[in-house]
C-alpha cells in the first residue's frame, strides 16, 4: 500500500474524525494521488461489506431455539407436588381454620412431625366431595319432588 497516508488516517478520514488541518492535508493529497484514492475506495468497499455482514439474516431455526430457551426460563415453575396445610387452604380458597374443620377427611401424611398433603390426592378429595354434593342435591330434589307428588295425589 501507498506509504504516504497511514491506513489509520484514511479510516479516520472516512469517519470524518480528523482535525480540520489534517483533513485539508489529506484532501490535497488524495486529489493528486491515484494510489491513495484506490486505497480509500478499498477501505470504503470493506466498510460496506462489513455493514453487510452485520446485517446478515439470523437463521429462523436459531431465533426459534433461543426464543424457546428464553420462554422456558420465563415460564413459572411447576406447582409443588407436596403442600403444607396453609398452601392446601390457599388452593381451596379457605382459611387454615376452615380447613382444620375437615382435617379428619383429608388424605394427609406426616413427615418430621409436620402434616403434609399431596396436590394430586387433594384434588382427588375435592372431586370426591363434588360427587357427594351432586348426589346429595339429586336425592334432595327427588325427595322434594316425591313429597310434592304425594300432596297432589292426596
Amino acid at each position: 500500500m501507498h506509504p504516504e497516508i497511514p491506513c489509520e488516517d484514511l479510516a479516520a478520514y472516512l469517519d470524518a474524525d480528523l482535525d480540520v488541518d489534517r483533513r485539508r492535508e489529506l484532501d490535497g493529497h488524495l486529489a493528486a494521488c491515484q494510489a491513495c484514492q484506490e486505497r480509500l475506495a478499498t477501505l470504503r468497499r470493506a466498510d460496506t461489506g462489513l455493514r453487510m455482514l452485520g446485517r446478515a439474516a439470523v437463521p429462523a431455526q436459531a431465533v426459534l431455539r433461543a426464543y424457546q430457551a428464553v420462554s422456558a426460563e420465563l415460564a413459572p415453575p411447576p406447582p409443588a407436588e407436596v403442600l403444607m396445610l396453609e398452601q392446601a387452604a390457599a388452593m381451596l380458597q379457605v382459611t387454615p381454620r376452615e380447613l382444620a374443620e375437615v382435617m379428619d377427611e383429608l388424605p394427609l401424611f406426616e413427615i418430621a412431625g409436620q402434616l403434609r398433603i399431596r396436590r394430586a390426592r387433594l384434588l382427588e378429595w375435592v372431586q370426591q366431595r363434588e360427587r357427594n354434593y351432586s348426589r346429595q342435591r339429586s336425592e334432595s330434589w327427588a325427595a322434594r319432588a316425591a313429597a310434592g307428588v304425594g300432596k297432589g295425589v292426596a
Partner: protein
Amino acid sequence: MDELSDDDLMRLFCDGHKEAFGALFARHHGCVYGFARMMLHRPEAAADVLQETFLAALRGAERYLGDGRFRPWLLRIARNLCVNRLQAERALRAVMSAGRMGMDQERWASREPTPAAAAEQADERERIRLAMAELPERQREALALYALREMTYQDIAEAMEAPLNTVKTLIRRARAGLAAKLTGDHDAP
C-alpha cells in the same frame, strides 16, 4: 411495546412483566447473532451464543444499571461468551496437537476453510468473513462490533470494556488490515 425504550422494558421486566423481555429479544437478537457469527467459525456456535447471551441477560437483569446502554451491555455479554468459546477451541486444538488425537485434528482443521483457497469461490460476504478470520482476535472483535448498525465507537468501547481511543485505533487498524487482505496486500497492518 415498540415505543418503549430498552431501559423501560428492562424496568418492566424486573417488575415482573415477563413479556417485556420478549420485546427486548425481538429488538436485539439480530445484532447479537450478527456479532457472534463474525466472531466464531460456525453458524451453530453463533446460534448457541445467541441463546446463551439472552439467558445470561435474563438471569443477570438486576445487574443492568439502567443507564441507557442496554445494547453495549448485551453485546458485552455476547463478547465474553465468544471469547470463552474461542479460548476453549484453542485449548482443544492444543490438546489435539499434542499428538494423541492426530486424526481428529485433521478433521477439525478441515472444518475451517483455508482462507486463501475458499476466498476464491466465496461471495463478497464470505470473502470478508474469511478475511476477518485472519485478523488478530482483538481486532476481529472490534470489527464485528463496528459492523453492527447503530453501534458508535463509544458503544463498542463499552462492549469491549476498553478506552475509547484504544478502540478507535483498533478498529481503524482492523479496517485497514481487512481492506489489505481483500486486495491481497498482506503487508498492510
